[in-house]
């Protein structure tokens, strides 16, 4: 039961005519349908469904009607208001969807705008190159050994069968520290790390040596497109029972395939190094032309093969100097230039680009080769 109506005198009120009610409802529905946006719909809602709208006023008058008229009037007005509210909700939903879509359209940006707020860093290819090589060997169960760049003369030369009068000692133009009778050099190769490893660890049947030693080395070379007083080498050393050249070949073939692609193998040519006997130069089948129609190949310059490094069976004199029983154990060693390897792997034309520090060079490699 509704409460007493204080505003209206029920005696003086007449029921809203059905025609007026329909007109008000139709006007409301038309306005709702015509509302172009949520703003307009809000106004329509206030005008046609708000407290002062004809339908609301009509509804308010129901209580003043004679009881017999109330039910019928209430029904008619209720239906009309229901229709209007329904239409409002529906229109609201439609307009909201439209509005969201419009906002998304309006918020569109030019996605081609640059985004380079933060500087881009990169690691040097000599670093990532050395890591790549180390990883290949670590995956085979080898370890990575290191040593200092300023090295004892004895470790750099004598221990490696390069005696004071060995002609090969002149092949390597050495930086000596002053005074020369300090017997210190900038290491001319990574091979002293071999000696250090053998001296530090020794070899037993249970603990053979399989180490790879990447590092920086120095020779008094002129600085040009293919020479530098500072460059990088990687050295490998395996000491175990019954090690042979076949193991050396197997290891280098595996290394070559990992570094340059499946099917890239190596070949050996007799050579001479004081620390190995027999010694070999190791060539890599050209990973660009693979030795087929090499004449036009710029990587191998028509050779079909690329000179990669030196290797051999560790000279028993070296084992002896490093305290290893050469009658029980044999070993192999190899060494190649990391700079050189990168130069032909990546088609670099001037060695000096590695040492200039031009960010355009290094960022081109990102942080992985």
């Amino acid at each position, binding site marked *: 039961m509704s409460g007493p109506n204080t505003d209206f005198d029920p005696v003086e009120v007449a029921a809203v005519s059905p025609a007026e009610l329909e007109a008000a409802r139709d006007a409301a529905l038309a306005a709702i349908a015509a509302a172009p946006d949520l703003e307009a719909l809000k106004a329509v809602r206030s005008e046609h469904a708000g407290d002062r709208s004809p339908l609301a006023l009509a509804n308010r008058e129901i209580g003043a009607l004679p009881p017999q008229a109330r039910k019928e009037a209430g029904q008619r007005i209720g239906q009309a208001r229901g229709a209007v509210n329904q239409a409002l909700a529906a229109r609201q939903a439609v307009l909201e969807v439209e509005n969201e879509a419009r906002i998304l359209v309006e918020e569109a940006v030019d996605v081609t705008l640059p985004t380079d707020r933060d500087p881009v860093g990169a690691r040097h290819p000599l670093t990532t190159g050395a890591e790549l090589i180390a990883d290949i060997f670590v995956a085979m169960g080898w370890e990575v050994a290191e040593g200092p760049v300023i090295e004892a003369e004895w470790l750099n030369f004598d221990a490696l069968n390069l005696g004071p*009068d060995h002609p090969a000692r002149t092949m390597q133009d050495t930086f000596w520290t002053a005074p020369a009778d300090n017997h210190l050099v900038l290491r001319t190769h990574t091979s002293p790390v071999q000696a250090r490893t053998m001296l530090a660890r020794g070899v037993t049947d249970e603990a053979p040596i399989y180490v790879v030693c990447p590092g920086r080395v120095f020779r008094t070379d002129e600085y040009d497109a293919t020479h530098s007083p500072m460059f990088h080498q990687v050295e490998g050393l395996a000491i175990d029972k019954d090690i042979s050249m076949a193991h050396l070949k197997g290891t280098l073939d595996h290394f070559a395939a990992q570094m340059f692609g499946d099917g890239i193998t190596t070949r050996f040519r007799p050579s001479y190094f004081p620390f190995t006997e027999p010694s070999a130069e190791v060539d890599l089948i050209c990973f660009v032309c693979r030795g087929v129609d090499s004449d036009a190949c710029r990587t191998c310059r028509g050779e079909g093969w690329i000179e990669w490094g030196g290797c051999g069976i560790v000279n028993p004199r070296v084992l002896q100097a490093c305290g290893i029983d050469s009658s029980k154990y044999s070993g192999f060693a190899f060494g190649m230039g990391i700079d050189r390897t990168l130069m032909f792997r990546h088609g670099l034309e001037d060695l000096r680009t590695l040492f200039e520090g031009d960010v355009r060079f290094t960022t081109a490699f990102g942080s992985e080769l």
Partner: protein
Amino acid sequence: MKAPVSWIREYVDLPGDVTTEILTDRLTALGLKLEGIHAAGADIQGPLVIGRVLTRDPEPQKNGKVINWCTVDVGAANGSGEPQGIVCGAHNFEPGDLVVVVLPGGVLPGGFAISERKTYGHLSAGMICSAAELGLSDDHDGIIVLPADAGAPGDDAFDLLGLGEEVIEFEINPDRAYALSLRGVAREAALGFGLPFTDPAERVVPEVDGKAYPVLIEDPAGCPVFTTRVVTGFDPAAASPDFIKRRLEQYGMRSISLAVDVSNYVMVELGQPTHCYDRDKLAGPIRARRAQAAEKITTLDDVVRELTVDDLVIADDNGPIGIAGVMGGADTEISDTTTAIVIEAAHFDPTTVFRAQKRHKLPSEASKRFERGVDPLLPAAAADRVVELLVEYGGATAEPGFTLVGTAPERPTIQVATDLPARLSGIDISAMTTVEHLRAIGAVVTEHGVDTIEVTGPSWRPDINEPYDLVEEVVRIVGYDQVPSVLPRRATGRGLTRTQRLRRQVGRALAGAGCVEVVSFPFVGEATFDKLGLPADDPLRSTVALANPISSEEPGYTTTLLPGLLDAAGRNIGRGSSSVALFETGTVAFPSDNGPAPIYGVHAGPSEAELEKLLEALPVQPQHLAVVLAGERTRSGWWGAGVEAGWSDALAVVRRLADEIGVSVEVSAAARMPWHPGRCALITIDEVEIGHAGELHPSVCKAFGLPARSAALEVDLDALMAAAPDVTPGPKFSTMPVAKEDVALVVEETVTVAEVEAALRAGAGELLESVRLFDVYTGEQIGAGHKSLAFALRFRAPDRTLTEAETSAARTAAVAAAGERTGAVQR
């Protein structure tokens, strides 16, 4: 080593189908590495013929030059048989001489086509050639004048001049000195093709009677063998025959005189250096002895050299007449009046020659061979060959008598297991093959027990001394290409070390922070440190000095990575980058005072104590890390203004790195070049210094061409990584609600944030989770000489929600502690 193919074929009968390429492939496989194949004049096209100069009329020109208008008989080569008119600019010939003529239609090296042409008022039909024009040598001194018996006018000159003859250039390894001769190269060729070898050193030599020039060996260790022969009646004007000149030219030597050419020719042929003395200039017997201190000699290159007691010399009664195995003396040199010649062929100790050559900086063709090791049985044959050639081409008479003093050092006998080549190569090599191949290289092999042989290497192989040397010989003949490819059985590594992993992480973190890695040379000098503004007594100026630096301006190994890094930054700026962030990790070195590094023997490993002594003598060589940040750290763009790099960015990098590897670092104010004295931070770990970071001093920015306020840092990376925990303990944290409190504290300008923060932490107690400074304010409201620091404090208990009273009490305690310790007043 350069060897003409035709010369090789004199000693080994290679089948016709063995091309030069097949030959070089085989020799490379044996260890004589091919450097290149040369064929001088191979691109010359004929007609190139012998001509006889009929007339030569010199005609002075207006430009002061004199040309010769010549007529030359070229036989029927020009089709007419008439003399050929040719203009020639050279003057070293006369009518009647035989010369080399290229006729119109011919093409000289470099595609230089010859045609009839008008020149100097004549129609010149062809050219009289010099050796240089034919690509035979660099000799531009006139045209080639052929010997009178070279041939008839019109004869083809190609073969006569050896044009197009292939010469193989090899790279000879130090252990194969024997291959520095045609004898050695041909021996390898014979070995490679399994063919008989005709040894040019196998000659019948006279009986040793000691009646040639007398010799006294006073130092048998330095000079084990010395031989002499004598020729007389030598014609000093005799010319070298063409084949000698040509072959020397092909080897890369210039023809000088017959006597010198013959000596050189025999050296190239056999590998034995010899020397010719003018007998009339010798006084008394020849002695091989050590020099006396301060004794002097003028060598053939007309340089007076002071000798040392370590030098082995050849001397007569007047003093040294040669540095043994290195170079002869000028006083007893063959001259254009020499008619009696003493020929020396001796064997010298390799080390003695090597040291002398080094000492006097006098590498020669002779020393190159002696220091590597010459066949000690060669002197007799070599001396005999020199005599033969001087007699044949120099009109000399061989005097009877042959003096040979001393005995050749013996080759050691090596016992070797017959299966060693197989075991070390991994190739299936039978005992029979081993013996066969060792005999093929000239070794004497005898059976010794069941599985062992006794091997004596040939006299020309001083490099063969140990079992492994024999293995290389056998394997290179079997073929290195036969080595199978087998992976070793068992490597059981432990992976990268913690340090190696951390180093990679540091690099990745820096790249992630926008820094680009560079690699610089470590060479520095005083100017480098001046550029960094280091004071005169800065310890960084004390470097490990190099005895032979690339540049005398940079004689030290660096103690800091900053110079190289700042140079690289400046280079990038100079090349147009406006901003650059670089990093470098590398070795720096600090001299140690532990005395010289010992030199130990090599017959057994040094003891632990010895090894330790050696390692202690090395300079301290830590890995450092340096970073430079110049220009914008965050770029400006359509999004708004960027942020210039500054001191705080350098510190941010240090802290980020420390966080990356689980290390906590402390920061305090410092004043140290090359940093701005008020914007430099000392970085420590547990109060031990590891480096500095901050803004670079304005003068340093200027010196390196960097933008103002560029920032940099350098830390001891080894020390940083050493502080990283082996195992990072898992963190413990509460999930109870957080209580946040902000405090603003006014302190004097000189009070540091770190001090206030430490006080707040101490005062707040266990409930404090974190403190973060979020604002610094200075201004009128605060008062001069003061600043306001705003901190956000977060409190949390491990087991309960904090009450307002608890939080408030903690906050109050924190503020009180700050007040007490730093004079902070709550704002």
